[in-house]
């Protein structure tokens, strides 16, 4: 069968790598269209783009995703931004202050002022507003540009990834055009923060695939996605972390980081930076942790290695500290797929990891490294006010410290062999990252779901199994705000 994948950006092909490989391995053809023009791509990642998607996996062809430019579709896009903002006005939204500035930035001035008035806030914060908007989307004429494209490609199923767009959202245009032509649609939620810090689903696809139960509840309760279309798959982009084995020992890793000679085989603490959206510049925190480690251990203690976030490398470009190694620096942040092994080696050889609120904690949980974070009045806005940080807290695998000194104290405990969160890490991986089974790659589950949802063609039968539907009885309140912990299997049972 032929599957069309419509992605926001070309680098989202990495999130879908295991899905695409599995589908192509089963003999299917994939057309991958993305919204990144070559002139939009940052210079440092020029090696990554479009060509790799099709060159790496036989059976995949790729290209630029057209955007509908009809006048009505342009109007709809403005309306979608308003609805995106409205979702955050709901009373029980887990992160109502999150990304608000970013969402409002894209609105015309008069509209921005209008939606701040009490009447608009009240109206937009209701479920009726989203229901009405979906009605408008469904009743609107489909984009002729997209209808032509879909007729040309003629896929058996279209995947929109991620199904939630907050910057210039055109996902609903694709969903509507596919629906008009009777092409089954599948919306994929790419990441663990998509449902609490991006926009919303302006049209509901035939199936909506999320990582786990917690995100399924967010889809149902925050975005009014009917439970019968939600499927749970696990996290496809972490399949690579699960499957990549470290190749270097600690001394080898120090060499890769450019440090040779005496003293460069000692343990190191890995500081995993957060994205710019969470914390603009973490250099002060890094300096504090380095000083605390020195106070705790003197000159012979563990080193501090900093891994800047790939979307925010500039913050550490000019950072120099005698007790801190920054690796990789901006220029060394090459194509992520090529440096993947390096990342896994860096994680695996770390004594423990420290960070504020980063997706890298998920990788560290898979790599089974102790994870430390600092929660204080200073950093809480970047943590507690985000919907996704509560998943980490619920996972119960983070060691919460109140200061850099407490981090250093906990590093000593780890160095002494005390690791009381290891079961928490395994539980988190079972509950949050691979709920269909620790040995079941999420990419395979997504491929199964795609096969079950695709338009059948003569001579082809390809239903294997499906991702789990949402477990009845879970609520958003239970998921984060009551303080109850998950049960032994991670689902409260």
């Amino acid at each position, binding site marked *: 069968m032929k599957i069309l994948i419509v992605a926001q950006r070309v680098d989202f092909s990495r999130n879908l790598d295991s899905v695409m490989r599995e589908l192509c391995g089963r003999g299917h053809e994939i057309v991958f269209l993305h919204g990144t023009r070559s002139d939009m791509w940052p210079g440092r990642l020029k090696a990554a783009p479009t060509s790799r998607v099709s060159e790496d996996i036989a059976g995949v062809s790729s290209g630029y995703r057209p955007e509908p430019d009809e006048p009505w579709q342009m109007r709809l896009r403005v309306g979608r931004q308003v609805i995106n903002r409205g979702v955050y006005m709901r009373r029980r939204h887990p992160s109502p202050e999150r990304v608000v500035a970013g969402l409002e930035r894209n609105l015309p001035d008069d509209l921005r002022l209008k939606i701040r008035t009490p009447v608009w806030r009240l109206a937009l914060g209701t479920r009726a507003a989203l229901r009405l908007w979906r009605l408008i989307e469904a*009743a609107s004429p489909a984009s002729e540009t997209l209808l032509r494209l879909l007729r040309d490609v003629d896929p058996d199923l279209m995947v929109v990834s991620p199904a939630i767009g907050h910057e210039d959202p055109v996902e609903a245009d694709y969903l509507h055009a596919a629906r008009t032509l009777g092409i089954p649609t599948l919306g994929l939620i790419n990441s663990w923060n998509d449902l609490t810090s991006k926009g919303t689903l302006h049209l509901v696809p035939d*199936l909506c695939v999320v990582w786990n139960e917690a995100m399924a509840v967010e889809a149902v309760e925050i975005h009014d996605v009917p439970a019968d279309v939600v499927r749970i798959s696990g996290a496809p982009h972490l399949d690579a972390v699960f499957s990549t084995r470290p190749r270097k020992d600690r001394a080898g890793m120090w060499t890769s980081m450019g440090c040779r000679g005496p003293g460069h085989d000692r343990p190191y603490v890995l500081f995993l930076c957060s994205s710019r959206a969470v914390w603009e510049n973490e250099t002060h925190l890094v300096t504090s942790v380095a000083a605390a480690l020195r106070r705790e251990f003197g000159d012979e203690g563990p080193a501090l290695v900093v891994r800047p976030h790939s979307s925010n490398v500039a913050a550490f470009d000019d950072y120099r500290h005698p007790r801190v190694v920054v690796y990789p620096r901006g220029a060394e942040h090459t194509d992520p797929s090529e440096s993947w092994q390096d990342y896994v080696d860096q994680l695996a050889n770390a004594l423990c990891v420290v960070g504020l609120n980063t997706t890298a904690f998920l990788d560290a949980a898979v790599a089974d490294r102790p994870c430390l974070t600092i929660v204080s009045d200073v950093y809480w806005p970047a943590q507690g006010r985000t919907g996704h940080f509560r998943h980490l807290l619920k996972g119960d695998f983070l060691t919460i410290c109140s200061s850099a000194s407490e981090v250093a104290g906990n590093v000593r405990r780890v160095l002494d062999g005390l690791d009381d969160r290891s079961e928490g890490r395994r539980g988190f991986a079972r509950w949050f990252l691979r709920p269909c089974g620790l040995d079941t790659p999420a990419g395979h589950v997504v491929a199964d779901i795609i096969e079950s949802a695709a338009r*059948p063609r003569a001579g082809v039968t390809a239903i294997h199994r499906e991702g789990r539907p949402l477990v009845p009885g879970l609520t958003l309140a239970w998921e984060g705000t009551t303080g109850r912990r998950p049960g032994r299997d991670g689902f409260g049972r």
Partner: protein
Amino acid sequence: MRLDASDMLVRVVGASRDAIRQLRAIAPAGMDVVDEPIAEPDWILVATASQRLDAVASSRLPPFRVLEAPEIAEVNQSPSDALRTALVRISGIGARRLREAPFAVRLTALIIRRLMKAQ
């Protein structure tokens, strides 16, 4: 949120009489198993790939709601595990819910056309 199987219509295509009788016997409460054409089934259970092809085309149900279960063509003494599994899966996912009411869509489309003309 509707997660039970109440008032769910499952249309069966290509099943033997015995199979339909057995399907009705093992169907969860609230699930109606019918073998005649009906306007809006929630699920369709078919025996062959070609029946699935026809059913998806004619019903306009999302393809995942049209399941192929070769067992229904010939059921012997007791229903197979696969058949039980299919029904459990059907009841677990639930009835189809229309995303938008057709009348409301038509009415809104009328208004949108007027707005577009006025642009």
